[in-house]
């Protein structure tokens, strides 16, 4: 988006603008339709337990989507979560070796490892100024290679019952507790925490960082700390997702494969904007649940598993195209500001819009018409 576009959008937004509304409505409608459809096509969905099972299955992806949301809303990507999940599960099996007494120390270690990976991602992205796409891509390669190097190609060891209960067991054996899986409990706790966090001052600063980090810096916000924090949260939540996923489906070297793209898909499906600064965490979660519900529907309708990804592909493109046609009329924002980063020199180069670009006061004036934004030609030639 252009600097003018950002400014235009900021100025048009009153302080009390309900941010959670962004992109939330469409995904909720689709989700609701899918859930109703499930009741018609699947006998398992005649009782609430079917839906709880769906929620349990979806919990790891939803948790990953929350983590990915933090990173995306801050204007970055995290492609390393899939391989991080694999690494965590493989490490857990190797360290536990079926020994119940080690469960809690290993869980603590896994969470710590997730934080560490996130910290490294964040530090390299912010301090060494490497695009997060590359950093997390490199991290993906490093983690995948390191895990297989360590295990010699095939995961060894075994998870403990206590460890696996988080992903597969219910809270109790009778009554209402027997209905609620641990995974759902974990999901609810994290979801509430995430919503409260995004409503806090820090959460709002995080969101603003993705929207316009120079403004945040000028206002005294710690942009780098925000971004590092987002990566740390993503790593931590990937560790949590790995614990649930390992418990649910057991040890395999493929457990996390493709999860990074699924998480990004889920977040985008929730109307969260790649590039940062917009979207709600609830919508990101709803996006993840929608994706899983969609797979359940396709499965029940007898669409072969192979075509699932084709449908998934069409739906992502359609969802983003829809969102873009909605917002595109309002403000066609073509570029994200390029002048991010702490050591930005005062003089801007030809390709970077100078921060002092006059804000365009009305939202409608940033349109596809080339001549409505008189600042842009000068930017290109400066």
């Amino acid at each position: 988006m252009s600097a003018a576009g950002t400014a235009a959008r900021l100025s048009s937004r009153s302080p009390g603008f309900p941010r959670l509304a962004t992109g939330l409505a469409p995904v909720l409608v689709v989700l609701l339709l899918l859930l109703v459809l499930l009741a018609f096509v699947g006998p398992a969905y005649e009782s609430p337990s079917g839906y709880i099972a769906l929620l349990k299955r979806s919990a790891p992806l939803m948790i990953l989507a929350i983590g990915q949301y933090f990173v995306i809303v801050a204007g970055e990507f995290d492609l390393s979560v899939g391989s991080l999940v694999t690494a965590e599960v493989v490490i857990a099996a190797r360290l536990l070796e079926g020994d119940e007494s080690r469960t809690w120390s290993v869980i603590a270690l896994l969470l710590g490892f997730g934080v560490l990976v996130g910290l490294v991602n964040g530090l390299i992205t912010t301090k060494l100024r490497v695009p997060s796409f590359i950093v997390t891509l490199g991290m993906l390669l490093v983690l995948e290679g390191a895990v297989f190097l360590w295990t010699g190609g095939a995961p060894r060891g075994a998870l403990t019952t206590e460890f696996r209960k988080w992903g597969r067991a219910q809270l109790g054996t009778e009554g209402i507790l027997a209905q609620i899986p641990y995974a759902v409990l974990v999901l609810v706790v994290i979801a509430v925490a995430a919503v409260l966090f995004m409503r806090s001052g820090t959460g709002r600063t995080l969101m603003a960082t993705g929207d316009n980090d120079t403004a945040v810096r000028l206002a005294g916000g710690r942009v780098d700390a925000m971004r590092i924090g987002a990566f740390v949260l993503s790593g931590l939540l990937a560790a949590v997702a790995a614990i649930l996923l390992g418990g649910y489906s057991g040890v395999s070297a493929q457990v996390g494969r493709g999860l990074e793209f699924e998480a990004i898909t889920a977040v985008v499906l929730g109307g969260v904007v790649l590039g940062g600064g917009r979207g709600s965490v609830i919508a990101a979660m709803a996006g993840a649940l929608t994706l899983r519900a969609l797979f359940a529907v396709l499965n029940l309708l007898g669409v072969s598993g192979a075509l699932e990804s084709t449908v998934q592909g069409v739906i992502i493109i359609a969802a983003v195209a829809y969102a873009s046609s909605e917002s595109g009329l309002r403000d066609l924002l073509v570029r994200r500001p390029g002048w991010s980063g702490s050591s930005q020199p005062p003089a801007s180069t030809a390709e970077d819009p100078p921060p002092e670009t006059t804000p365009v006061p009305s939202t409608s004036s940033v349109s596809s018409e080339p001549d409505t934004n008189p600042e842009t030609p000068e930017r290109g030639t400066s």
Partner: protein
Amino acid sequence: MTTIALPARKVQFRLDATAIVYLALFALLVIGSIVVAARGGGVLLDQAGILKILTGCTALGLVAIGQTLAVVAGSLDLSVAYLIGLCSLVTAEVMAGQGSMMLPAVLAALGVAALVGLVNGVVITALRVNAFIATLGMALILKGVLESRYTGPAGSTTKDFQRLGYDRIGPVPVSFLLLLLVAVGAWWFLARTRPGYHMYAVGGDIESARVSGVRTSRTIVLAHVLCSLAAGATGVFLASRLGSGAPYVGTDAGYDLQSIAAVVLGGTVLAGGRGGVAGTVGGVMILSVLDTIFDDLGVNSFFKDVVRGVIIIVAVALYARGRLARRRLVTPPAGADQ
């Protein structure tokens, strides 16, 4: 004026980054030769070694050259890996072992590739879908097609056609010479033609390019068609190497992310507008030389991934240090707001 300023700055930059890449390649060859010799791995650059390095370059090099065009235009293509598999299948199935079908098979594969690229480009420009999502969606669509139609290798290529993959002149494979030809063509296109300049302009600042009279949508669509054509050519080449089409030949090698890695290793800026084909070829060769060195040393293949990951991050960090301004994210060419 933009049109004058852009090429001048670009040429200067490309000399810098490309020089670094080739210096690194040279240093790697020297150090690699010494280490391999010292560890008793034989001579790195003997006939077999050179053949191995150059063969390793060819497939990734082709994809990466196409990816360079997309990245320079401020876009990226995550669908190339599945497209490679699809094109290898199209080639092998159309050919079906008949020598007379050689040309139609190649044309069919390239036609499929061009179509996929066209769809990518149109979705990105007309529907204003972020390139990351558009090509990821296309990757998923192709994946579904491959999974539902194929369970393993299919079709077959003729013996004559397989010579494309195996013939060589001395230690230099013919296919590598073809790669160089494609590289020179792509370099000429980017550095010497109007549409090539337009790609730098669009990747550098799409709004400035638009107001300067560049048809930005057309440029992005062209970049994607060319990128997909390069991926299609890779599929054809791999069909020739394998003697049949294989659905996962592209994804098993991770050509989607590896090609982007090679492009940025070659000094092209992920956000677009800077870089070039020469650097990409150097980047691909660095990766291939590393592979060969590790093979000669008998290093675990998983260790290669670790080193690759670290090298890519370190290289980009070094480029970032040397650059005044930067962009942090993949910047979609149009509709950043989706």
